[in-house]
């Protein structure tokens, strides 16, 4: 059934933002991007069972390395909701609805970080020092992992072509590891991910340090495709918003280093929108 559904979605709706809904009424599928540390199968299974008990149908998570892959699945109707970054949300906000916005330290905001290897005599003190150096990004559709870097490099007067090299690592976690291994001399990373990795004692974080912190941006939201919603989508929204009300939900949120979910407003992402408008080729018009 699922395979047939995917096949139909691939054939009929891959290239179309207004794809025919391909959801099955007995299951909700949520796409995950590297905006969170979502590679723990046991945790996702527990979270899925928790949401399913609240929603009344099976809930499963679909993780992909790139934001674009998740967007493709969402727009092709192969998933019902997606946890994406604020930048693709503002870029495709005409086609997306907010499902919920996570609360990090009680606020629907996070920061982007510029990190460098934690070594004696590190030369990178800020964006302006990146000329002739190697910079690691997360994803072309990441706010903190690409868009912020583009805006700050421009602001610092360092054209991207004057970097020795810039490359994508397909995830904020990999940005930290690339900088820790000194594959890159600096990395543009999601501050929430970096802090979460630090709280979990991941080795790569001990070898990196934060050089710069951005202004607050709207936290990467959970979104749905505009149009007919899955019949249980409202139940899912309520389950997410009420996770902080019970013990199991709070434990799951603690694992995510979050404090809860809020319905959110588009205005939360205005700062991202403004920034994207300043970056040529961001896809966000003025």
């Amino acid at each position, binding site marked *: 059934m699922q395979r047939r559904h995917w096949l139909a979605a691939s054939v009929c709706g891959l290239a179309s933002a207004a794809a025919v809904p391909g959801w099955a009424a007995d299951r909700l599928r949520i796409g995950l991007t590297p905006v969170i540390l979502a590679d723990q199968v046991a945790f996702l299974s527990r979270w899925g069972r928790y949401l399913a008990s609240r929603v009344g149908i099976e809930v499963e998570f679909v993780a992909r390395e790139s934001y674009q892959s998740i967007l493709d699945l969402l727009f092709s109707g192969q998933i019902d909701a997606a946890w994406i970054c604020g930048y693709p949300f503002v870029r495709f906000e005409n086609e997306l609805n907010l499902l919920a916005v996570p609360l990090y330290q009680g606020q629907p905001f996070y920061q982007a970080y510029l990190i460098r290897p934690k070594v004696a005599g590190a030369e990178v003190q800020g964006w302006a020092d990146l000329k002739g150096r190697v910079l690691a990004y997360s994803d072309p559709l990441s706010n903190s992992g690409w868009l912020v870097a583009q805006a700050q490099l421009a602001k610092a007067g360092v054209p991207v072509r004057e970097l*020795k090299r810039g490359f994508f690592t397909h995830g904020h976690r990999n940005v930290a590891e690339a900088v820790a*291994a*000194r*594959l*890159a001399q600096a990395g543009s990373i999601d501050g929430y991910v970096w802090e979460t990795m630090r709280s979990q004692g991941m080795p790569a974080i001990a070898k990196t340090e934060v050089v710069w912190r951005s202004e607050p941006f709207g936290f990467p939201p959970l979104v749905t495709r505009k149009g007919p919603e899955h019949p249980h989508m409202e139940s899912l929204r309520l389950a997410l918003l009420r996770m902080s009300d019970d013990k199991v939900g709070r434990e799951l949120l603690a694992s995510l280093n979050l404090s809860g979910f809020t319905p959110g407003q588009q205005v939360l992402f205005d700062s991202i929108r403004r920034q994207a408008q300043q970056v040529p080729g961001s896809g966000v018009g003025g």
Partner: protein
Amino acid sequence: MLRRLPYRVQIPLGLSLAVLLAAVLVTAITARVQAQNARRDTLALLDRAVVLVIAQVRPLLAADDTWRVFSLLRDTVQLVPGADANLARLAILSPDGAVFAASDPVQLETGRPVLGQRWREKALASAVNTERRALLGLDDGSVVLIDPIRSEDGQTLGFVFTEVDAAAFAPDWASLARTALIGIVLAVTLLVPLGWWVGKRMARPVGRLAEVIERIGRDDPGVLRADVPKTSDPELSRIGDAVAQLMGELERRKAAEERALSAERLAAVGKMTGAVAHEINNPLAGLLTATQTLRLHGGTEAIRVRTIDLLDRGLQQIRTTVAALLPQARIEDRPLEPGDLEDIVTLVQGVADKQRADIHFQVEVESALRVPSAPLRQVMLNLLLNALKAAGDHGTVSAHLQADETQVRFCIRNTGPVLTEDRFRRTLTAEGGKDPRGFGLWVCQELASHLRGRFELDATESAQTCLLFEVPNREAPEGLT
């Protein structure tokens, strides 16, 4: 040191040392072989790793994906020996020869030009000139490999740079030592009790043999022979046979010694008997002559008295001589008197008459004589008879008794063949050993020795034989009667 220890310690210790030595040798040989094989195996492994990397990296290079190339290299380099100790590293170079990504970005930082540059004092060919694999052996034994990465249509997409430090080819001493140590511990754990048991088993017959040898001379050989352990070991069996043979030899030797002792006792008895007979026989001829004189001229008072005195003194001499052989007899001997020499001359006169030989004697006594008469008379009698015998028929014998405060000398000469010092010594030795017939000179020497005097050939006399008997003029030492 080791040889002082008992077998039950020596053997396990020896076995353990042998195991240790074998382990060290095996480890050394293994290390050498491993060192030879390690380089070849590592290079072969590098070949396979490079093939794998080239196959995997092509689409990543086409996508310009530095992170995934880094991930690939980071995982692949773990296949290369020494990578965990940071002794091996892989890098993908861009078509212009700069580092695209490396497994160890600290040593091979991203974007660093490599081809056409110097690498650890060695010049690397430029990217353009690297059309096939380049193998670079560094002075310290490290190896650098550069393999071009080609697209299907032959375009150079980049290069695989592989470097393995010399230490990666070295034997894994720690691992070898650990293996050897485990082997040694296991072997020693097994061999020590086994060796102790074998040593004890081996030493048991040796101990029993030693015990038997210690009892030789104390216990009955028959019992000891039965106690010699029977063993199948050829060496121990030889020792046992040798011990049995030794006991047989000792038994035979003991029997021979007993026989020799018995014969020696018999010889001593014979010798003593001969000496006594000689000493008694010497005055007997004179005494028989005296009895003949008494029978013919006993009517004359003076002759009768003188002859009876002569007989009395002669018999007293014999009595004293015989008494000397009896430990329980204690006969007081009188001191020598000047007339004793005349007595002795009278006793031997019969012998001299038979040889028609002349006897001259002279007595010069300036002091009282204190020496005992019996040994001195015995000496004078012996020497006179020997001198008459040496002088032969018609010969002349001169006897001179001289005494002063300190010494008593008896000097006797004869006109017979001159006795040399050498022959004199040989005669004394012969008489003291195997020639019981000539006891005269030997007895004189023994008496001179006992009286703390001397008996020797007067070397100043060259024309005649002159024997000198000289003793201190004092009473005889205790024990001589």
